[in-house]
């Protein structure tokens, strides 16, 4: 019996010591940022994948400014859920999302700021109020398994034909912001004809294996031959590591999706947040971006690792229309898919 009491007491002591140990290491010095350019303290950033890019930017910014970056990584939905729950007690300073239209929905929570490098940005990748900065971007393409299709260049409408029956898949637009933007952009550009094409895909046995990586995984393993609406940077990275897949941008035109970064109105560490925005547009980060196979946000930076903006044929879409209509389009899409 005494033994048991001792064990319990030890566990309790261990618990307490761990809690206190954590509590003491937790205390980050929060010196007040003054007006001089020297910065200190921290900046809280909510950002999406890819993880490797986020980590590189974090390390680079910490080394450059000495400001500690506290990062939460998650999908657009998770970031949003956090922002929603934290309304009474805002924590984040800078938010980065993977979808421009989701950025537009949060634009009222964003603060205008003229970041260094504003005039070098790609046309249309900053909103007129200078709140959202598309500091990087992804494009949507068709990704296919080269063991099953040595070459492929079918256009969107042709992918619904019988020859690809039961071999096509798509990421879940509910968890992939870029896939959602592709669908809304596609409908914006093609109207009812676009819906007809999506219906053809559905009748051809389109499946939805999950978020971006899960859908790509299905094509890599050959469970499906063709991924419609795949995010291109994932595919570039996998091709680089030797996976037997190919990527192309269909003739009918695709969607390039700037990834918006913005400062929250409620930011607690405003000077650090501004410095972080400047840093995102710096040569250093823009290079990291194309090293991770994303499109750089600045027009004067040329990516050597992948297709550039000028190489990609985009459809005719309007972001404001897409942001307004994305909810109803998603409703129609999920109903169409029978979910």
């Amino acid at each position, binding site marked *: 019996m005494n033994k048991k009491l001792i064990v319990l007491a030890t566990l309790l002591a261990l618990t307490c010591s761990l809690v206190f140990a954590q509590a003491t290491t937790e205390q980050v010095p929060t010196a007040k940022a003054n007006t001089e350019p020297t910065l200190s303290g921290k900046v*809280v950033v909510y950002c999406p994948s*890819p993880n490797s890019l986020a980590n590189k930017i974090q390390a680079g910014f910490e080394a450059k400014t000495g400001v500690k970056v506290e990062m939460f990584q998650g999908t657009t939905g998770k970031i949003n859920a956090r922002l929603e729950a*934290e309304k009474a007690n805002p924590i984040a300073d800078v938010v980065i999302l993977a979808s421009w239209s989701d950025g537009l929905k949060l634009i009222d929570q964003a603060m205008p700021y003229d970041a260094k490098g504003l005039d070098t940005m790609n046309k249309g990748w900053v909103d007129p109020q200078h709140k959202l900065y598309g500091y990087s971007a992804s494009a949507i393409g068709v990704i296919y398994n080269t063991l099953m299709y040595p070459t492929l260049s079918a256009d969107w409408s042709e992918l619904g034909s019988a020859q690809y029956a039961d071999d096509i898949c798509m990421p879940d637009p*509910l968890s992939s912001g870029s896939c*959602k933007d592709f669908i809304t952009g596609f409908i914006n550009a093609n109207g009812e004809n676009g819906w007809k094409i999506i219906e053809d895909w559905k009748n051809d046995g389109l499946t939805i294996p999950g978020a971006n*990586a899960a859908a790509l995984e299905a094509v890599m393993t050959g469970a499906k031959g063709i991924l419609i609406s795949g995010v291109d940077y994932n595919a570039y990275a996998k091709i680089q590591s030797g996976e037997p897949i190919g990527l192309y941008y269909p003739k009918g035109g695709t969607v390039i999706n700037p990834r918006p970064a913005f400062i929250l109105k409620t930011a607690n560490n405003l000077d650090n947040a501004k410095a972080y925005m400047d840093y995102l547009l710096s040569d250093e980060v823009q290079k990291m971006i194309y090293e991770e196979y994303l499109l750089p946000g600045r027009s004067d930076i040329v990516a050597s690792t992948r297709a550039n903006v000028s190489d990609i044929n985009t459809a005719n879409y309007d972001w404001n229309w897409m942001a307004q209509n994305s909810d109803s389009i998603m409703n129609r899409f999920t109903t169409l898919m029978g979910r």
Partner: protein
Amino acid sequence: MRKSLAIPLLILLAVMVAFPIATLVFRSFTFEGQLQSGLAATSLISSESRISILNSLKLGFWVVIVSTLLAYPLAHLLSKTAFARHTWLSIVFLIPFMTPPYIASMGWILFTQKRGLLSQMIPALQGVEQYFFTFGGIVLVMSLHSFPFMLNFLKNAMMNISPNLDEAGAILGASRAYRTRRLTLPLLTSGYAIGALLVFVKTLSEYGTPATLGLRIGMEFFTTQIHRKASFMPVDFGGAARLSTILVGICITFWFLQNTISNHTSYATLGQKGSRNQLSKNSLRVSISGWTYIILLLIVSIGIPYFSIIMTSLIKIRGYGLRAGNYSLQAYQKLFSIETEGLRALWNSFYLSAIAATLAAILGTSIALTTHNKKGNSYKTIQALGLLPEMLPNIVLVIGMMIFWNLISRWIPLYNTQGMLILAYLVMFLPYTIQYVGGILTQMNNHLIQAGRVFGATDFYVKRKILLPLVFRGTLAGWMMTFIICFRELVASSLVLPVGYVTVSTYILREFEQGSVSLGMSMAVICVLCTTLVLLVLNQYTKKVSL
């Protein structure tokens, strides 16, 4: 002494459980500050919700049936035959339960999908995916996950049936069938009802399998819909809360049903004199059929998913699949090298779970002891609040806690700290300890305590020398369960993890969703190894302390 503990417990549970849920329910009926009971009504009847609710109920029903069928023969073998001597079997059969459901489902998907591992090994079995990617497939995967839980309840109930009863029946001339029908089954009903209810509620509130496998076949369930409202754009906490309220209603109805059944069928079987378990040597027939069954079940519940998980973690280039020369340990190297993030995730999960499990063991035991055999509303409330988290899907609790602790963060700044995550773990898994300890208390015959009193022991002495040693087994089992589940917990971890932290499950999910499946799988393998190790160590220790 009990009276004095009741009030602090009541306050603690109110803050931990009742306030967050109340906040959420309030939020579900208000929209921009205005009461909108109409909204709740529309959500009740929306056809989309109705379909997902029906899907979930159907799933829960079938999982209870299939996991009972899987667990019953095994429970019999492990409690009434010489197989009981192989204690390692009880541990091995915990592995399916310790495997995070989202990982097991991924394993099954990779195994059975078109051009998956199965058809790569046996090309003749191509086309098997059309049988697996169905509702039946989900039932199978979820039953294989939850049958150990059922096994645990059935086995304990069977072990507590004294052979004296059976022998008495036999001596009085009852046939084996008659004894099963009139003796064993009635005595099992109470334990089984609890097990069945828990499996049912667990299935209803499970997210991992419906999200991975359900998505593939285009089926929407209760939890996937709640998750969709709570963590996909456009975020709609109100809608999530309304759906959750319905789910809570359903779960509580079943809970009452189970309670009624158990109350009518519970018998005190522990603590009678001379209760002993005699294990006759197995006949050849029992041996052969027993081993066949056990081996088959092991292959299906552990072999297949783990083959898939381990292979995936070893394959170098996903596109070439199982092929000589396409294996490497690079995923594991990566796991432990890249800025040691993998290691950090493991360590974070380890100590967060240990703290949560310890707190849950202490609090759970106090609650069970305080409320045992007590009538009166405050005791009933304590017990109901302590057990409520089990009736609720985790996401409901977590969202409620998120909103509540944000509201009061000016006074108690817990949100966005590790304390918040520990608290979420504690609240979600507190019921385990309460149930384990409570289960022992219910079956404990009052004679033991009365005997102590007769011999002049004080109340405190009786507690220390009789009650605590008896319930310690339950406390430890509660600790173990809580630790294992927290170690791989996904919902709370992904929602209230403090900024800048990573745990095992968030690491795995991130790799599945955005990164490399091989890396995620290698983390899964390490995670299961860790929990199994903890389990083995504790089991060794329990053997030493058990009476």
